[in-house]
């Protein structure tokens, strides 16, 4: 195994993750030799990503496809399959985060988060399962959130969507293990974007060890590159014997109580 080219010659699909800093996945995967096919809603952003990847690893492609539109995504995937063949690796990096106490949550927000985190990846997996099986297997990685597993105030909707994604990911893992398709997820915590930015805004705290030390054991925020390294591990042959797993990338936040992260405002109802 060449550890500096962990995805050499691999056909890698990435859905979402074109906007910095979420492009860390694409940047790292390209450096490891992947041939990327990136799919996201914003074509201008996609073009900028491709430009920044010019000359890094293989030739890459961008296709417009909106992760918020589960009905439209299947057709885009069929077209992508025809042009590029089945992926060896598929990373689902699309994410939509909106947080509010439930009585103040916008009615459409839950629908939109469920669309991006559950319905769209479901539709994509439905298209990809057979070609990936016929291809002899591959790896699927979901960029998930620890709030799909543990609760926190203000994230009932986001947590429901990310929790559904984990449940789906585990079922896919069992359904396609015999075909050599590995399905795993990373679980990001409170300090990484998008929650980390929201948390700092809502709490009014300064970004430093004094604050992060109350949130999680690690005294600093995580970086998207650290999430990307974990995703790279799961996508590569290094994790060839791992399937059906969820890997926390959160500075050990899963180990400590965390419901106090968002300041509890006056909840007296009018």
């Amino acid at each position: 195994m060449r550890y500096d080219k962990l995805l050499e010659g691999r056909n890698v699909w990435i859905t979402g993750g074109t906007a910095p800093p979420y492009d860390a996945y694409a940047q790292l995967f390209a450096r490891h030799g992947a041939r990327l096919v990136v799919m996201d809603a914003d074509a201008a952003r996609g073009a900028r990503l491709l430009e920044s990847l010019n000359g890094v690893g293989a030739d890459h492609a961008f296709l417009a496809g909106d992760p918020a539109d589960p009905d439209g995504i299947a057709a885009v995937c069929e077209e992508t399959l025809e042009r590029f063949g089945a992926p060896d690796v598929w990373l689902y990096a699309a994410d939509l985060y909106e947080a509010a106490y439930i009585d103040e949550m916008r009615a459409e927000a839950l629908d939109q988060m469920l669309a991006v985190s559950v319905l769209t990846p479901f539709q994509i997996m439905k298209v990809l399962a057979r070609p990936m099986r016929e291809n002899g297997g591959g790896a699927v990685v979901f960029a998930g959130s620890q709030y799909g597993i543990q609760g926190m105030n203000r994230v009932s909707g986001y947590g429901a969507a990310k929790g559904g994604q984990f449940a789906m990911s585990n079922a896919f893992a069992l359904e396609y293990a015999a075909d050599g398709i590995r399905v795993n997820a990373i679980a990001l915590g409170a300090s990484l974007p998008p929650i980390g930015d929201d948390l700092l805004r809502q709490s009014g705290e300064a970004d430093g060890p004094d604050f992060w030390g109350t949130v999680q054991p690690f005294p600093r925020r995580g970086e998207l590159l650290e999430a990307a390294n974990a995703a790279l591990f799961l996508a590569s042959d290094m994790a060839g014997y791992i399937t059906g797993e969820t890997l926390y990338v959160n500075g050990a936040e899963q180990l400590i109580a965390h419901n106090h992260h968002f300041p509890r405002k006056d909840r007296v109802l009018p």
Partner: protein
Amino acid sequence: MNYEKLLEGKTAVVTDADNAVGKAVARLFARHGAAVALGVKDLREGYRLVSEISGLSKNSFAAACDLSDAESVENFCLEVKKRWELVNALVNDPWLDPAAVLPFERATDFDDSLILQVYQHSVVQTCRAFWPAMIAHGRCAVVNISSSSVFKAAPGALLFTMANGALGGLTRVPAVEGGIHEVRVNEIFAGFGVNGPECAKAPLKRGAAASRPDIDGVANTALFLASDMASYVSGVSISASGGAQRMRYAALN
């Protein structure tokens, strides 16, 4: 980060380095530039392994470390500390065959205490020996190799499961304590059958592009967790068992 030499310039300790997983971890860590201290039951096997990896890493050495004997573990840790001020990566890979998989009705008090020494006390001993320097330095890693039987119950393997279960505590508490220093502590649920009898069939197809032999899979997971690739990963338990952690376990005995 140099992904070809993920442990360049680092020191690593592997206990029970003469079992199948321990050997694979030692070889892989050496290939990635680490100097490895191999704690072995069989010194001749240890010396053979050191000469095998000496081309990859100059300062590796083997020393006697019988995990079932607290004094032997103590002496091994002293030997390591005599040579190195700091251990960057500590891999605890306890294995005891075959007493660990005795049904508890047939096991004796002696078996119980042997199992507890190997799976629990030896790990406390190595952590205690190397922890203060790790904390003082920061950004070091401990990897405990446990069993997926902790996740799904394997009938007949009560003592083994109980003993391995303790590695969870030995992972999560130090992970919280070490967090402020970014000393990371993680646990691998190796597939049952990596070192011993197989009682859960891994559903993952082997031989496919995505699939590798299980022992390499465990070693690569240990490498990931010990390296900066996992710089924000701590206190986790990850199964490297081909999905066996989600299957039904057959009776062992």
